Each structure stands twice: as structure tokens, then as C-alpha cells.
């Protein structure tokens, strides 16, 4: 058993800033159509609302509690200068008396307050952030992170998932929506990121945001357009295609807008398993992704 990434292990992220565009559908479909599921680790990194397990029905083998750091102020050392409160970007440490008060729910565990304190009066203690469970669905190994209600940032949970031991060949990571801290942590260091979008103004807008992020992090990416043929004309598809051409982004495939796919998903089914016509699409997609990964 290896700790962290094995030498030959690759990471494929499935992301795309818009919620509901089909990230989980695509990530699951990729996982179940891979020719060698035993070489895979499926990571549900959408720790605010993990849902891959609802489709995979894994048997859980292990659950670990994950902690985050929150500041504690040593009032004996603090002189009340307020540098910590000025440094905090989240309003989580406030001058409400002679010494600062910590608003635990707002804290993003960034450590800035302890860093700037000129008197070394701020220490850090562990607080529960959530849990990471490990299990199996048939021969597919799955990790799922789940954040506690009220916690501000799931970054340490995503990090714990990425640091989990895995001796196989490929990790498929179902990323959270948006372009926030948890997404940054999820896609950082990935070998390839598949961006799932849809032919709508929202899909295009959020695709552009995701591409901007991935460019900053130097993660190669390609686009999959879900629900093609959704509108009355093809203007949504054309705009996505124009954007991808301008940005020199490969379009790796499209999934047609089909009520049956949505219905299968709503019943907890993985669409590629219930709609055999999608099998060819995903086998072509794998072909292009594996080419990009090597």
C-alpha cells in the first residue's frame, strides 16, 4: 500500500463551475465505463453535498473524522492591538473587548491571525470539520467527504481525500461546483480536468470562470457539453464552441438533452448504464481523456 499518490497514479478531475451541469453524472459514467475499475479510486470531493454514494451504493469500510485549525487567544500574552482582527478576511476574529473574540463558524482556518500576532498570543486547536469515508462498490473503490453543517470551508476535507492512500492507477475526482477554495484544492495538481457545461448563458459564464482558474493552476482541460439541443436553436452550442475555439480548448464530446437521462438520474441510476446509446459516447470520451493523460 502506498501513501499519497503512487508514482504512476494520475488524477482526472470532473469540474465546471455551474451547479447542475452534470459533473456527477459524467464522473460516475466515466467510473462505470472504465475497462479496469479495480485500478480506479472515485473521490467525491463535493464535500458540501456529496451524492456519488447515492448512485454507487458502496459498502463503507472506514470513516475518519477530519479536523481543522481554529485560533485560541492567550489573554495573558495579548495586548489588544487588534492586528489579528485587521488581518482576518472573514470577520472571524473580532475586537469585542480588551482581547479578541473568535467567531468559530466564520473561521476559514487560514492561520493569518496567528501569523500576524506580534506577541505570539494566538495558538491553534483542532475543531471537527467533517468526515471522510472509504468504501467499495463492487470492484470500484470510493472516498466520500462530508462537511459538518455550519462549517465555513471544506478545504481540509478535500486535502484529506487527496492525501488518502491509493496504490491504483487513476483517481477520478467529482469536484464541487463554483471556483471557490474547495475547488481550487480539488483541481490543484490534477493531470487533466474535464469541464462539464451546458449550452446556456449560465453554462458559458461559469465555464469561462473555471477555465480562468485552471489556467492559473496550469491544469490542462477539455470541455464536455451536456444537454446539447436544449434550446430552440443552436445558439447556446455555438457560443460554447466559439469560446472553446478562442481559448484553444478541446471539446471532447456532447451528451444530448434527453428526458430519459434526467429521469434515470432522478431515480438514482447512472445514465450510461440505463441508456445504452451513451456507451459509445463514453468509450470515445475515455479514449480522448486517456490520450490527454499520457
Amino acid at each position, binding site marked *: 500500500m502506498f501513501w499519497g499518490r503512487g508514482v504512476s497514479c494520475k488524477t482526472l478531475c470532473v469540474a465546471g463551475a455551474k451547479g447542475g451541469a452534470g459533473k456527477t453524472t459524467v464522473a460516475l459514467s466515466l467510473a462505470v465505463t472504465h475497462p479496469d475499475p479495480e485500478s480506479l479510486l472515485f473521490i467525491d470531493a463535493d464535500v458540501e453535498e456529496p451524492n456519488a454514494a447515492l448512485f454507487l451504493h458502496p459498502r463503507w469500510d472506514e470513516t475518519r473524522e477530519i479536523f481543522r485549525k481554529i485560533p485560541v487567544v492567550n489573554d495573558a500574552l495579548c495586548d489588544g492591538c487588534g492586528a489579528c*482582527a485587521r488581518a482576518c478576511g*472573514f*470577520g*472571524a476574529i*473580532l*475586537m*469585542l*473587548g480588551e482581547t479578541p*473574540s473568535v*467567531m468559530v*463558524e*466564520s473561521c476559514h482556518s487560514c492561520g493569518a491571525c496567528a501569523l500576524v500576532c506580534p506577541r505570539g498570543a494566538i495558538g491553534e486547536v483542532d475543531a471537527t470539520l467533517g468526515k471522510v469515508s472509504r468504501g467499495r462498490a463492487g470492484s470500484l473503490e470510493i472516498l466520500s467527504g462530508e462537511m459538518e453543517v455550519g462549517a*465555513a470551508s471544506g478545504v481540509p476535507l478535500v486535502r484529506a481525500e487527496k492525501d488518502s492512500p491509493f496504490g491504483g492507477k487513476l483517481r477520478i475526482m467529482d469536484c464541487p461546483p463554483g471556483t471557490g477554495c474547495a475547488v481550487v484544492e480539488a483541481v490543484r495538481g490534477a493531470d487533466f480536468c474535464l469541464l462539464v457545461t451546458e449550452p446556456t448563458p449560465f453554462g458559458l459564464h461559469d465555464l469561462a470562470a473555471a477555465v480562468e482558474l485552471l489556467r492559473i493552476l496550469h491544469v490542462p482541460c477539455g470541455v464536455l457539453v451536456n444537454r446539447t439541443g436544449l434550446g430552440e436553436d443552436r445558439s447556446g452550442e455555438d457560443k460554447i464552441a466559439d469560446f472553446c475555439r478562442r481559448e484553444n480548448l478541446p471539446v471532447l464530446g456532447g451528451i444530448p438533452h434527453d428526458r430519459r437521462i434526467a429521469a434515470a438520474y432522478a431515480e438514482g441510476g447512472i445514465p450510461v448504464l440505463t441508456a445504452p446509446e451513451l456507451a459509445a459516447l463514453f468509450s470515445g470520451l475515455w479514449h480522448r481523456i486517456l490520450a490527454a493523460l499520457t
Partner: protein
Amino acid sequence: MKIAVTAHGEGPDARFDERFGRCDYFVIYDTASGDFRSVKNTAAAAPNGAGGLAAALVRKEGVSKVFAGEVGPKAAEALRAAGIEWETGGSGTVRDVLGARGVL
């Protein structure tokens, strides 16, 4: 005693603002001198934690009581920690709210 009233503008005739953490201004009434002072609520623009930041702001102004439309749970926690009392509800102008509470 200094009382901060949440407001949409400056001075005693400004319209009462229902919000605490994201109100536009705090109009602060000094019961000893009868003076009004208006302070822009810099916490209103904070992406999160505005309630706590607003509590720290009024504390810095020496306020010991707040009149606001609503006070959220995080703001309440911060006001409590700062030893500042608060009362919620009201309508009209800052002067109306102070009048309705028997201060003016």
C-alpha cells in the same frame, strides 16, 4: 449612554434600516449631550461575517445599545461578547425609532 440606530443615511431624519450587519449607516445618539453622529457601516461590504464586524464597529464607537430591525445569530453572539444590548423592530426615521422607545 450612546445608542446606535441602523439607518439608510446620515442624521436623525434618515430612514431606519431593517438590517444590522449590512445597514448603510449607524446614527449614534448620545443621551448625555443630545448629539447625533453618523458613522458609515464599513462592514456592509464584507463578503461574510458582516454582523460580527458591525458589532466590533459600534463597540469601537463606544455604543452600549443598538436599535435595529433584525439582529442575526452571529451578530447577536458578537454583541453579547461586546456587552452591548440590543432591541429589534421599528419603522420610520431614526428619530421615530428613538421616540417609540421612549428615548427622545
